[in-house]
């Protein structure tokens, strides 16, 4: 049985903290955006949940950035520029074609490299592009009295609203793909277990990996 520490405890706690807040934000955000529709939360309740969860998510993001600066975890999100296009092609080809041909997974998570290049790029985009935009636009809502009336001739509040909605949709898209992609590990639940226990690879996984490789 081979095990290798992959996710430190702080990262796992942060991950599930984010997951819970993401769910709360999606449910409350949809309830606010489509207020009045059946099956959704009450408007006032949704607003309170959204404001609190959003503030907590922003704090979590700041902690994540600081932790990545202090530890070497941040390097896992940076793809190697050399052979980037080739790596991308190999990974995308596997997901789209190779996986159905029973080809071996071209990437195995380990302490040296936790994420394949597609994961790296999507995490990089989500955490360092979409999240800052989401947080800044969320703060824009909360501090709208301090905003200028217009920005480049457009209502600044409308810009804030559209940025917030667009980044939210893109992050929901990320979430959707993320939840599915984690099932494509060495086994169906290997990645999920790794994020729960921190360890990666079990005897079952090894068997499957070995069978793939053979």
């Amino acid at each position, binding site marked *: 049985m081979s095990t290798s520490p992959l996710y430190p405890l702080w990262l796992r706690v942060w991950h599930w903290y984010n997951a819970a807040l993401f769910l709360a934000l999606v449910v409350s955000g949809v309830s*606010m*955006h489509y*207020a009045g529709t059946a099956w959704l939360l009450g408007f006032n309740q949704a607003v309170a949940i959204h404001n*609190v969860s959003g503030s907590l998510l922003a704090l979590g993001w700041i902690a994540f950035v600081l932790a990545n600066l202090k530890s070497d975890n941040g390097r896992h999100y940076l793809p190697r520029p050399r052979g980037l296009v080739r790596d991308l092609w190999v990974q995308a080809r596997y997901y789209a074609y190779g996986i159905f041909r029973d080809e071996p997974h071209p990437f195995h998570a380990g302490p040296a490299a936790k994420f394949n290049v597609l994961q790296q790029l999507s995490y990089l985009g989500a955490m360092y592009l979409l999240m800052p935009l989401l947080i800044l636009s969320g703060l824009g809502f909360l501090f709208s*009295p301090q905003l200028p009336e217009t920005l480049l001739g457009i*209502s600044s509040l409308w810009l804030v*609203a559209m940025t917030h*909605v667009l980044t939210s949709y893109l992050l929901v*898209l990320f979430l959707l793909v993320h939840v599915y992609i984690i*099932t494509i590990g060495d086994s169906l639940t290997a990645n999920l277990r790794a994020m729960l226990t921190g360890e990666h690879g079990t005897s079952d996984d090894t068997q499957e990996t070995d069978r793939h490789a053979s």
Partner: protein
Amino acid sequence: MTHHCSRPRPTRWLAGALLALVTSLLAPAASAVETARDHDCLRCHAMSTLAYREPDSGEIRSLALDPQQLDHSVHAELACSDCHARGYGRYPHRARLTDEQLGCVECHADDPADATYRLDRIAEEFDASVHATSDHHKLRQFDCHSCHDPHGFRASQVGDDLGAIVRRDNQTCLDCHHRVTDPLRGSHAWLPQRDAHWAAVRCIDCHTPSTPQASHQILAAADSSKRCVACHSRDSRLREGLYRYRLAQDQAEHGWLASLVRNDAYIVGMSRSPLLDALSLTILALVALVIALHGYGRYRLARRRKENDR
């Protein structure tokens, strides 16, 4: 000459400081009360029963003032004679004084606050308002004071309760338009959540044209806005006006941290863009479909593998 130069004891000093603090805190309230009480006019006009009968119509007209309300009004520090200058030396006052014309704009022409409130603009708006253009017999003597009682008027301040502002503002309209609230009259029956709207927005939010500051151009019922998207949309009038104030009020009252949690300035629909929503939901649905097909493909593969293993 003897000098009693002893150092004040800390307790005595503290008591003195406390007294000075309490006096300074109480002083503005006390002096404001005195300002109103000082008016000689209030000896009679503070009597709640002071009134006269209109000779033509026979209607009873009250001449009473509420001294408390006057104390809190924007005009509390003025002497009565600053506005009611001439002809009040005789008692009872002469009948012609009932025609006395007092205009806010004339007095406030040199007021520094004019820059904020733009009284010249208010005068123009009022001239275009239904209250000025209608030839309804009840509007014959309509002027600023018909809505804004100069003896009680006070502009809303950051820190005032928004619900109270809305109630006070709407009461000004309902004083005359009281039949609007009659359940048997359907003038506002079209409005969804009518009572919630009445508690949260001012009459003028729909019954004036959209301007950054509250307009005095009151529109006729037929010209008033019935467009939901005027508020529930990207250019929300409320968000830019009343509710921007509400958020500023929240922050002033509870601090910015608390306003993070309890701020409720989001108005339904302001972040909605039908195109963006349709596009995003379509993309999400397509991605979900691709994922479902991908998952099904993997399931078929796993089953085939299992059969081969057998």
